[in-house]
């Protein structure tokens, strides 16, 4: 019997998820023994045309990482969906939108202007933007078009399972692959990680007091954290209480607060809303002016509470005032 075929694909991502697969170390050999990897642009020389030549559903499973924010990523998500029996959203960006999802605070014009005109490192006096089509020596060169909005994978195509994390922890990846091979998967739509908060597996759990009262929020680059005590009790914005476990709390082991890459547990629908609720409630004051002063310590609420999940949030994004170019018309700059 031939081995099940597996694919990996990346969209708007940093490459850390590919790294996570390499980080399986010897366990990757066990995986390779059991499956055939037939598509993995980061590591292997198979082309899109190879996937297009496959029958629909020929791949047993495809792991897609990265958010969806270009015409090419959308096409590839649809292609991989069609060719795969199971589609797994791999990592925070694919699952919830991730860091690239914070671009939803801006629109197409602002993102392009910042990237190609205004950033201090840009040298582009004519303000040229990447063009979807460029004639060159009698040929036409093409580039994908950047979308106005960053979406999660499941806002683009139906997704069967989710592997959370930035990147997903090695043990969860191996468990997921084994569960798929052995046909021991939970109901579709499940997140393949434990459904308890990170505090539950945190080494500092015993030092978490019953009642936490905060007079001042601290930031990791401005204060030195005690390496043994609960970070939240010390006043650091540690998102452990509202984040999913399964990662083994490596950030806390490194004396850094949890930033919530594993996303929420099953009972929470809007991660940022729940996080806001948790941290505001801990403030030890009933006086409006003093509450405001304590809140000044949360410098970037959206970046803190929706760091990995803005596209998956209830509000998703505001429709920006002013003219926003249709992404299809992208290509000319605003001269």
């Amino acid at each position: 019997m031939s081995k099940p075929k597996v694919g990996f694909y990346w969209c708007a991502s940093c490459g850390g998820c590919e790294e996570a697969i390499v980080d399986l170390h010897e366990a990757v050999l066990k995986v390779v023994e059991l499956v055939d990897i037939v598509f993995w642009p980061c590591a292997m020389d198979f082309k899109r045309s190879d996937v297009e030549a496959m029958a629909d559903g020929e791949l047993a499973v495809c792991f897609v990482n990265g958010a969806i924010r270009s015409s090419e990523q959308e096409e590839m998500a649809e292609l991989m969906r069609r060719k795969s029996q199971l589609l797994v959203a791999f990592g925070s960006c694919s699952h919830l939108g991730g860091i690239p999802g914070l671009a939803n605070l801006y629109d197409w014009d602002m993102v392009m202007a910042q990237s190609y005109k205004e950033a201090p490192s840009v040298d582009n006096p004519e303000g040229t933007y990447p063009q979807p089509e460029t004639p060159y020596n009698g040929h036409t060169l093409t580039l994908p078009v950047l979308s106005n909005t960053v979406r999660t994978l499941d806002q683009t195509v139906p997704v069967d399972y989710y592997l959370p994390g930035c990147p997903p922890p090695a043990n969860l990846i191996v468990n997921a692959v084994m569960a798929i091979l052995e046909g021991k998967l939970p109901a579709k739509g499940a997140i393949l990680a434990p459904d308890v908060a990170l505090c539950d597996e945190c080494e500092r759990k015993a030092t978490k007091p019953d009642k936490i009262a905060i007079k001042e929020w601290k930031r990791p680059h401005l204060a030195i954290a005690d390496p043994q005590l609960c970070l939240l009790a010390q006043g650091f914005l540690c998102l452990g209480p509202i984040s999913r476990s399964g990662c083994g709390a490596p950030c806390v082991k490194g004396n850094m607060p949890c930033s919530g890459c594993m996303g929420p547990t099953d009972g929470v629908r809007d991660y940022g809303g729940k996080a806001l609720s948790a941290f505001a409630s801990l403030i030890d004051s009933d006086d409006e002016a003093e509450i405001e002063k304590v809140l000044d310590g949360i410098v970037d609420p959206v970046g803190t509470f929706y760091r990995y999940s803005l596209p998956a949030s209830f509000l998703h994004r505001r429709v920006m005032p002013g003219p926003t170019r249709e992404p299809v018309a992208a290509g000319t700059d605003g001269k």
Partner: protein
Amino acid sequence: MFEPKIVAIFCNWCTYAAADLAGVSRMTYPSNVRIIRVMCSGRVDPQFILDAFAKGADGVVLGGCHPGDCHYVEGNYKTLRRYRLMRRMLDQMGIEQDRLRLEWISAAEGDRVQKVMTEMTETVRKLGPLKLEVAAKVHAEPAASEGVNA
């Protein structure tokens, strides 16, 4: 004229009773407001507010007991803290802070309900409709029913 949709979430002990009083006293206020009763303003999970905006509310009003009067001692203080942070976060997302309002209204202040509802309707009317680009999951099969589990 733009008719805004306003969701009001009132606590059972003070503000909802005040709205009742406004009703039996035949005070009128704009019909733009839909009132939801909760046991305490502290029960208002910020997810409810975000969900209201995402589902088409142009403004949200929270009503609770005056400081010191909370039936559950400190529920309204928790609401106050969340509300202050919520306004900051909405602002960062490009949503006008005035679309969210918190008011302390005791059971005797029916006239205050009338005033706040009228003011809020006018404020939100001036701001115009809240335009969000709400994204939904793509489902292969019919979606399972979802409820806010908070």
